[in-house]
């Protein structure tokens, strides 16, 4: 395997009962790359992300992170998860902890960091996403956009090799989407390896190295944004891209 392949997904299959949502999906992501997955709802995009850190168990297929096979039963999955960041559509911040607590609990509990060190680290990440002044607030006291940025800080505090974003802006009011996308774009530009499920085409066009179109459990087409937008290989790709650009516009700069 090439040295700078951070994530390799090989032939993933997953069924829920009679419904097969992933029918043999393979993806490679190199270090520092950002890839965006698009596709109609229910086509397994979220399932794909959750199979990567085994929050959902794939039926078959393999996943490697930096050469370590994640799908190997013998691997310590908690240690692997500690190196993969995940940002959820519903934020899933820990309701009983303040923002600072949310960001530092990972380093403290999972990585065994000392409280002082973890607090400093957490504050640094909060500054990075622009929430240093909200460290003492509870999640419920923050707007949706702030909560999502906090959850990104939580993921960053673990110093991940890869961050998975599961429709990070879908649950946000339109005016709040921008602040989250801005953080994500900066991350991409700073060289974070990212896999993002999203409809935000503006984001895709500005920083994505590749857009992957997933439909009916298979990758229909994948390529750099310009290629997909200007010379799509499949008619279906063009249709879908037109639809979402129409609906969601090109929100970020």
């Amino acid at each position, binding site marked *: 395997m090439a040295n700078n392949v951070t994530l390799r997904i090989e032939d993933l299959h997953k069924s829920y009962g009679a419904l097969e949502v992933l029918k043999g999906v393979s993806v490679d992501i190199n270090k520092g790359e950002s890839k965006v997955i698009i596709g109609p709802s229910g086509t397994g995009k979220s399932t794909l992300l959750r199979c990567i*850190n085994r*929050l959902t168990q794939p039926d078959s297929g393999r996943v490697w992170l930096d050469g370590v096979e994640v799908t190997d039963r013998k691997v310590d999955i*908690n*240690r*692997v*998860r*500690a*190196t*993969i*960041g*995940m940002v*959820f559509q*519903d934020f*899933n*911040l*820990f*309701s*009983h902890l303040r923002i600072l607590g949310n960001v530092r*609990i*990972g380093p403290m*509990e*999972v*990585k065994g960091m000392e409280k002082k060190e973890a607090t400093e680290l957490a504050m640094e990440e909060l500054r990075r996403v622009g929430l240093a002044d909200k460290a003492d607030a*509870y*999640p*419920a*006291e923050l707007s949706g956009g702030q909560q999502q940025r906090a*959850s990104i800080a*939580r993921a960053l505090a*673990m110093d991940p090799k890869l961050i998975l974003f599961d429709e990070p802006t879908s649950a946000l009011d339109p005016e709040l989407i921008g602040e989250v996308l801005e953080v994500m774009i900066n991350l991409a530009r700073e060289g974070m390896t990212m896999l993002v499920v999203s409809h935000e085409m503006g984001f895709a066009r500005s920083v994505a190295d590749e857009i992957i179109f997933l439909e009916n459990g298979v990758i229909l087409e994948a390529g750099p944004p310009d290629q997909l937008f200007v010379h799509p290989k499949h008619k279906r790709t063009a249709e879908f891209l037109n639809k979402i650009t129409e609906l969601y516009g090109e929100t970020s700069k």
Partner: protein
Amino acid sequence: MNLVFSWDWLPLLGKGTLVTFELTVISIFMGFFLGILLSLGRVYGNRLAYLVSSFYVQVFRGTPMLTQLFILYFGLPTIGIMLPPFLAAIIGMGLNSGAYQAEYFRGSIQAIKGGQMMAARALGMSQWQAIRRIILPQALRLAIPSWSNELIYLLKYSSIAYMIQVPELMFQGKRISSKTFLTFEVFLVVALIYLVVVMILSRLLGTLEHKVKIPGLGVKGRASL
């Protein structure tokens, strides 16, 4: 109606009230630990844990506390186990309360959205870490109203322990009334004592609930006292 009262009753009733408190406090904490164990077993345990927990809860909620106390105090001697009254009472009340608390905790654990567990695991926490650091702190807070309810319930039902010779408030009341034949008056005082204690306790628990409140950690319509 001719009502008689004597201040002499108060010391004895006071002693009884103290025993009532002892019974209540010891039992609620026994029930607390048992309840957490059972509810975790039910939600996160394997099939065996689930079955044992469910069976236990159904049995102890499906039979009267009095019968449970009688089995412990009058029944066990037939197989050679002689429990002194107080011990029998706290074991019975503790086991009983454990079943109810198990259900409250189960409900509050399940009320916490699955996303919390997912986020915790995604960070790399083990299931036990996630339960301890993320799920339980929230679940216990959510369960506070039910727990307060349970505390008051145990206080009131400790009164049946007199039937197995525990010298709590009811017992002392009976003692005084059998000496003075003023059953109605004595129990009127006993009733008043219970009422005052319950009201004060409710007030205190309400303030506690308020103090520990976290915005966004909602408590949805539990039964109030």
